[in-house]
């Protein structure tokens, strides 16, 4: 089936959208390479859905342009754009059978009857919906409805597939299964996709690139690894689930990195701060920290509490300057069990990937 798709890149150029005085989307530039999947990730109200709706053609940008491939589609109505959107609510037509739901886009394009039949059957097979064609949407389970929504989008062979929080109506287990399916299908078809979600884990697990948005602006675009290793600022760091963001004292900085002091210890950052003269902070990833019985080498801290999370213990400790730090101890040895209230030594890594700010 993949050879039937002609996919195309998406380019968003200085895209802005205002609702009254509110800047819903503020000067966003994103390039989605053909065949890749980009997640728009951010808290609710960050402008990610509005951006998606501008790609689909439901919102007209106040400024900027949308390109699909080389074609400027900014002023093209949704029904002509080569995009297909999978809605959060699925938006399956309640008065039509599953077959008619899937065939809808082809009928709207006045495709020949035989071809409609053949293409619907094909997509039904791919989405494993055999036997459901005559049912109506309310008769299907959430996961099946999700497949129908996807089938309905795929059958029109769009150049671009768009997802608006497609899994938020499913339960946690199904969500994990469906996102794997979506990812497999997207790779198999090689179709350019934009996927909106507020779930960091979901975004990281399926995306080639993740665009983190906040208050209408694009904060950082990068691979999950880049975002995790080198978050652009503390918002990104927090959003991707990094908990220990501490302010540090900059000792020296050069092209190869920087020397910083944190909790009285001196360590290296592999990258210099992005801007000079700003207050600098750093992410201390919980799994990169270690605890031991009090000794000279570490920072003397007090254990606040501990919790068992599967194969690791998560400690919260308090440093002498009253900062709370989370430490994850994986596969703990007997010497690494500490009761709340005891004094322990916190060991920082010699080197951290980057600084914030």
């Amino acid at each position, binding site marked *: 089936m993949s050879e039937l798709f002609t996919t195309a890149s998406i380019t968003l150029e200085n895209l802005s959208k205002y609702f009254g005085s509110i800047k819903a989307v503020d000067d966003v530039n994103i390039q989605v390479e053909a065949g890749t999947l980009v997640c728009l990730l951010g808290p609710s109200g960050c402008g990610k859905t509005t951006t998606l709706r501008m790609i689909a053609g439901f919102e007209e940008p106040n400024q900027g342009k949308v390109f699909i491939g080389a074609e400027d589609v900014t002023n093209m109505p949704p029904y002509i754009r080569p995009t297909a959107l999978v809605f959060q*609510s699925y*938006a399956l037509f309640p008065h039509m059978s599953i077959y008619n739901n899937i065939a*809808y886009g082809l*009928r709207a394009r006045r495709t020949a009857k035989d071809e409609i039949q053949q293409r619907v059957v094909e997509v039904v097979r791919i989405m494993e919906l055999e036997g459901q064609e005559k049912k109506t949407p309310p008769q299907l389970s959430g996961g099946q409805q999700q497949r129908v929504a996807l089938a309905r989008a795929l059958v029109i062979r769009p150049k671009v597939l768009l997802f608006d929080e497609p899994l938020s109506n499913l339960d946690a287990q199904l969500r994990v299964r469906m996102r794997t399916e979506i990812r497999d299908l997207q790779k198999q078809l090689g179709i350019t996709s934009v996927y909106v979600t507020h779930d960091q884990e979901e975004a990281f697990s399926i995306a080639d690139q993740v665009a983190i948005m906040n208050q209408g602006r694009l904060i950082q675009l990068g691979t999950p690894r880049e975002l995790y290793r080198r978050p652009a600022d503390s918002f990104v760091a927090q959003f991707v689930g990094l908990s220990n963001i501490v302010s540090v004292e900059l000792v020296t900085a050069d092209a190869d990195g920087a020397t910083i002091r944190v909790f009285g210890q001196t360590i290296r950052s592999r990258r210099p701060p992005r801007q000079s003269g700003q207050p600098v902070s750093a992410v201390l990833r919980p799994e990169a920290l270690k605890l031991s019985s009090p000794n000279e080498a570490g920072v003397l801290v007090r254990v606040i509490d501990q919790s068992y999370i599967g194969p690791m213990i998560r400690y919260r400790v308090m440093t002498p300057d009253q900062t709370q730090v989370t430490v994850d101890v994986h596969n703990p040895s007997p010497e690494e069990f500490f009761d709340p209230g005891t004094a322990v030594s916190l060991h920082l890594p010699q080197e951290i990937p980057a600084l914030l700010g």
Partner: protein
Amino acid sequence: MSSEVLRWPQQLSLSQRRNLGFAALVFVELLLLIYIGTRLVGVELVEVTDLTQVSGNVETVFMRREVVGDPPLLMLLVLGMFVPLASRRLRREPVLLVALQVAIIGLIVFVIWPLAQVFIEGFRAGQNVTGFSLVQFETLFAMPMVANATRNTMIIGVTTAVLATLIGTLIAYTLTLTDVPGKRWLRILTIIPLVSPPFAVSFAFILLFGRRGVITYDLLHITQYDIYGPHGIVLVQLISDIPLVILILSAVFASISRDLEEAAEDLGGRPLFILRTVTFPLVMPAILTAILLTFISSISDFGNPMLIGGGFQVLATQAFIQLIELFDLQLGAALSMILIIPALAAFLVQHLIVSRRSYVTVTSGARTGHVRRLPGWITWPLFGLTIFLAAFNLLLYSSIFVGALVRTWGFDFTPTLENLNGLINAMPMLRNSLIVSVGAGLLGGITGLLVAWLVTRQNYPGRGALDFTATIMYAIPGTVVGIGYIIAFNASPYFWTGTFFIIIVAYAYRRLPVGLRTGVAANKQLDPTLEEASLDLGASRARTFAQITFPLLNRAFFAGVIYIFIRSMTDLSSAVFLNSGRTQLFTVRMFRVMTTGTPSEAAAFAALLIVIILLALGILSKVSGKSFVDLFRVS
């Protein structure tokens, strides 16, 4: 042993105490039933002349004991009281049980029984004769007038229903989903006929287009045109029924998930294709509902055909003539039955088929109601139609107010206040109307809330039947309600005719569906976990209803009261049968003035009534914080 028997209630276990309470409840109910039974049914000695045993000139006369009163109703009451006891679940919850018994008995006495009486009377062989017979119908259809009236009623009903639904749907679409200017005012003006009695529209038409109408006679100098006749009836019914369609369809258009239309657009559907394949099929059930309801409204209409029919007879007017002018109760009942059958059929179709196919609530939480981008050649004619209706309504209603303030409409347009003098004599009738309408509002509001609570919050066998019975009056023409109440409660042991009581219960139960829908809507919004929390914290069901449920439903209750008040103030079709010299109602007086007095006198009546209703709506708007248009949403 004796100490076992004489234990104090506190020492009893919970289940023992519950059983004791239940036994006491049943005992009290039995006493109540016996008391009612003695009032409802009696045994009398009746003098009987036996004609078969005539010997010479001496007739055998003897006394016989006969049951008098209303034994069938007593049987129904016994059933209504004891059938709920069969449910184990209800036996365990006395509050629910009593509430259900009260609701059921109310519905039996004031809904089922009067309607059944119409059927019983209609199928009787003759006066003072028992047994089933179709004689009435043979007599009826042998009369060309009746056959004509039946045909006329159906033709008018179908014409009005189809046209009103078509126009109303287009206007609802315009006002809900397009971005035409002035929607706020257009919304109010297009539904303004809801604030007046329907026959006021006829009256305004006559003022404007009648033989001495300002537009036809004074402005255009047309003398041949005659507004009286079937076309006149259809026109005025359109004006009074289109608002109903607008309300029903606006609600549905506004609730269509925007996602569905966007999905259609995203998949390549052009605007008209989407309208045909998505929007229209989704509102189809509502359109059918609107057709059926306007049909019922049209065939029940009594005032308009009377005023503007010009001798064109429909069933409602025929029933009035037979019953009130010719005192033929049976023929009146039989005519009512002809009227009730299509109305009930329409209601059953709506209730059992159409409402099941509603798609409106399929996707919860989806975004709804947004403006559609449509080509100008669609938008502008729609806008024109809307403006036309709004302007026409404005014209109709201003003519009433202007008419009230000139000397003699059609002849002498000198401004004057002297028409208001006529109103002074009508003050007792206005007082009567207010007493009846407030009473009906309160009774209907309370009953509506009670039944709404019973049908939404609780689960027990027969819940659907309860809902159905409480809703059925919606389909019953006002004329039939009036006739049914007369037949059912005219004679011994009631003698209720001519009292305020009969009008109040008739209005309350006739408009119960309104109170019920308001209550159901409020109940559905009410989070059931609030009640569960209260029960969980140890409050009884009674306390929970009084301290949690009722305060939260307060607004809905008040809205229900006002709606029923307005409906009762403007009713004519039941009123003409139920009121008496002592309890004459304002609308009846107004109707008489319209047929016999000068146009300006009558206009003053209509104007006063409209002002009162606007005041009531104003109060409701203040209390509920809703806009004028939203006030009508639930009704």
